[in-house]
């Protein structure tokens, strides 16, 4: 395909030649069936659709396919594909999820946070996680799980 956009999702090469404005979220969900990444608000306000572009947490719902040439995207499906990530382990240890719908995004955001701040303070966690909404209100356990994961990785 002449003008197809080339990129990788979870290490696998893909190309896309549809509407370049299509958000990554719907390509992941409707085209690839990678439904671990969730639709919450559609405008980058809730973080339920958080994925990684290289090591950065991005909002798939406002990331157009046109911006992905050469990108390496990683979704929740690939985190822990070969054994649970420390963040997933502490998420289980602290029984973080209630309904769980936002938790893929929370976990992706937390992993990105720990990359940039391996020993996050409360302020770092507030700042790093404030864009991810959990309507069930699991924040206290999210905070504890992030701190525990930071300890484990040290």
């Amino acid at each position, binding site marked *: 395909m002449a003008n197809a956009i080339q990129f990788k*999702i*979870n290490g*696998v090469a*893909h190309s896309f030649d*549809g*509407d370049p404005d*299509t*958000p990554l979220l*719907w390509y992941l*969900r*409707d*085209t*690839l*069936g*990678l*439904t*671990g*990444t*969730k*639709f*919450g*608000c*559609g*405008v980058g*306000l*809730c973080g339920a659709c958080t994925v990684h572009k290289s090591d950065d947490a991005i909002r798939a719902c406002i990331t157009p396919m046109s911006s992905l040439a050469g990108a390496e995207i990683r979704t*929740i*499906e690939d*985190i822990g*594909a070969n054994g*649970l990530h420390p963040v*997933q382990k502490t*998420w*289980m240890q602290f*029984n973080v*999820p*209630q*309904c*769980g*719908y*936002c*938790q*893929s995004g929370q*976990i992706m955001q937390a992993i990105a946070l720990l990359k940039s701040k391996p020993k996050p303070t*409360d302020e770092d966690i*507030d700042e790093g*996680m*404030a864009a*991810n*909404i*959990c*309507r*069930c*209100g*699991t*924040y*206290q*356990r*999210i*905070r504890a799980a992030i701190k525990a994961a930071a300890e484990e990785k040290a």
Partner: protein
Amino acid sequence: MSAIENVSRRGFLKGLGAAGALVVGAYYTPKILHRYESDDVRTDADNATLHPNVFVGVETDGTVWIVAHRSEMGTVIRTTLPLVVADELDADWKRVKIDQAIGDPRYGDQNTDGSHSVRSFFDIVRLSGATARLMLIRAAAQRWGVPASECQTDLHVVVHSSSGRRLGYGELATAASKLPVPKKEEVQLKAKSTWRYIGKGMTSYDLTDLVTGKAVYGMDAHLDGMLFASIEHPPVLGGKIKTVDNADALKVTGVAQTIVIDPFKPPPAFQPLGGVAVLADSTWAAFQGRKKLKIEWDNGLNETYDSDQYKKDLQETARKSAKVIRSQGDVDVAFTSTTNTFEGDYYVPLLAHASMEPMVALAEFKDGKVHAWAPTQNPQAVQAIVSSELGIRKEDVICHVTLLGGGFGRKSKPDYVAEAAVLSRKVGRPVKVVWTREDDIKFDYYNAVAAMYMKAAVDSKGRPVAWLQRSVFPPITSIFDVNAVYGDPGHLQQGWTDMPYDIPNLRIENGAAKAHVRIGWLRSVANIYHAFAVQTFTDELAHRAKRDPADYLLDLIGQPRTLNFSGVDYPNYGAAYDAYPWETGRLRRVTEMVVEKSGWGKRKLGKGAGLGIAAHRSFLTYVATVVEVEVNDQGDIRIPRVDTVVDAGLVVNPEVTKAQFEGAAVFGTSVARSGEITAKSGAIEQSNFDNYPVARINEAPYQTNVYLVESDAPPAGVGEPGVPPFVPALCNAIYAATGKRIRELPLSRTNLGKQS
């Protein structure tokens, strides 16, 4: 491996089995789709060798199937009730598999709301597990030729202790299945001292799936060949289409067609709202096509609805005498015989649920039947509304219940599932209706806007001798009866009819209010605004009397006694009053405990900080909460600590119960800080998390300590009761910190800063 596309469902399911169920890039097909392959509505429990009742099945390999008939939206009920079955069966939890029930009246009530799943089904599911256990014991006794009375169970085995013989449940399943199912009277439940799981609890059965993205929600349901639909609803409730131009919508790549959905015939109940659906080959294409629709609306009668004016009307009504709900002594005489009276007006606006997963449903109409996959709290209501919309039998509506990405009461109302079914029949293909966040906020069944008027006459010590409280709110019953304007007993009871204070002259009233939007139940429902008024007014009276608010609250609760509601329409949340009496001693106890646990009156607080207290019974559970708040000079609030003491009777799953109360503090924070839906010219003004904000991690309480009271009382609710006392406790803390009294929510309407 990347995407698997265009595989047949049958082939796909085979692939799933071979790949051990999970392949990155594949569609995570809900297990529930198995059912559709055979067009068979039987559960794995039904299909198991030994299946003495609808809740349990034992396979010959020892696998125990337990049916979860309640919906999972984060309360972990899908684990908690099966855990009770497993306990009575003496089953090894590691060998238990949970099967999610479809909507089917054979399970009894399935409407997962009102915080009553454990309360209503505890005895029933205990019996179901114990029945299977007795059959396994009898089968073993028969095999060994010994009396059943000499046999017991240990974990997943029957044991004959005198001979030391043991047989596993799997080995006994076939023999047990040939025995008659014992009558209820023959079945002995386990003694409390031998409970393995009840009271100790278990983490969510779905925990690993929930942290790996594998959990399947309604949003993730998929059928090959399905179309995606996005619906433009009438902006005003009851509006109708005047003209529609779909030409530009149809030009959008991927859009297949548009379909007009008829407006509902009042009352709205759970009918589709009507509007224009855009159907496409992807969610995004459907969203894009919908933006290109040109629709002219006839807004109808509700166009006059304006929240500012409506608020004034409610408050005016609240100042006039109204329908008496409960009365004792003579309030009027007491008010005229003293000048020492005090009054206040309280207001709580409309609230939206805003579950993280917007409304979504997949439905396929085929051969006169509908299969629906939906995140629903109420699959039997799905059967009812789809059946009436399509004119087919309820039994021909098979509702598969997915996990719910939050519910909070919104997903008890299946209008969105009916939309998918209606559209599927019209296009002859499976249709997945996906609401946007904007649709979710604008077309909710809102928690009622409410105005409360409170008045007390007090004695020389500041204690009330007379108390009048009047609430006015558009009732939930208005969605079923267009003429309903008064609260029904089921919602008036929520912290209003049952005001527990020991006051000689008391009158409780309710004024009329007409609804102009769909009103529905939201986590804690009427308790939210009723507890706000009663518990804030109490705090005001305490300060006015120059008394400690906690001591004053305990004084008003009075000595332990059972409230007497004879002559009063008080449904007690549908529970028998002798099993669940309203005991002020229990409210007193949680209040005393929270005083102690929070260090009330002893704790050192920083600059601009304050503590507030509130106590409330709802859903048969007694809760007292102390909130610590810090308010800076700019009026920004921070909530460093919350202490909450809970008497919910017997608690099956303590850890997840604590999580419910932690979450309730966050939910209450959202209500208090920013929860406000308003209408202008009949249309809702809010649309997404920017103008309907909910609490984020930096705004939520930093630390919520939950203490569960050890209790032999029967189990009560845990999902909702944390919210009602939290909100007034926070507002009372703000008063302690700033001297600013909050009588209207949300807080964003009040300048809490030093400069005002």
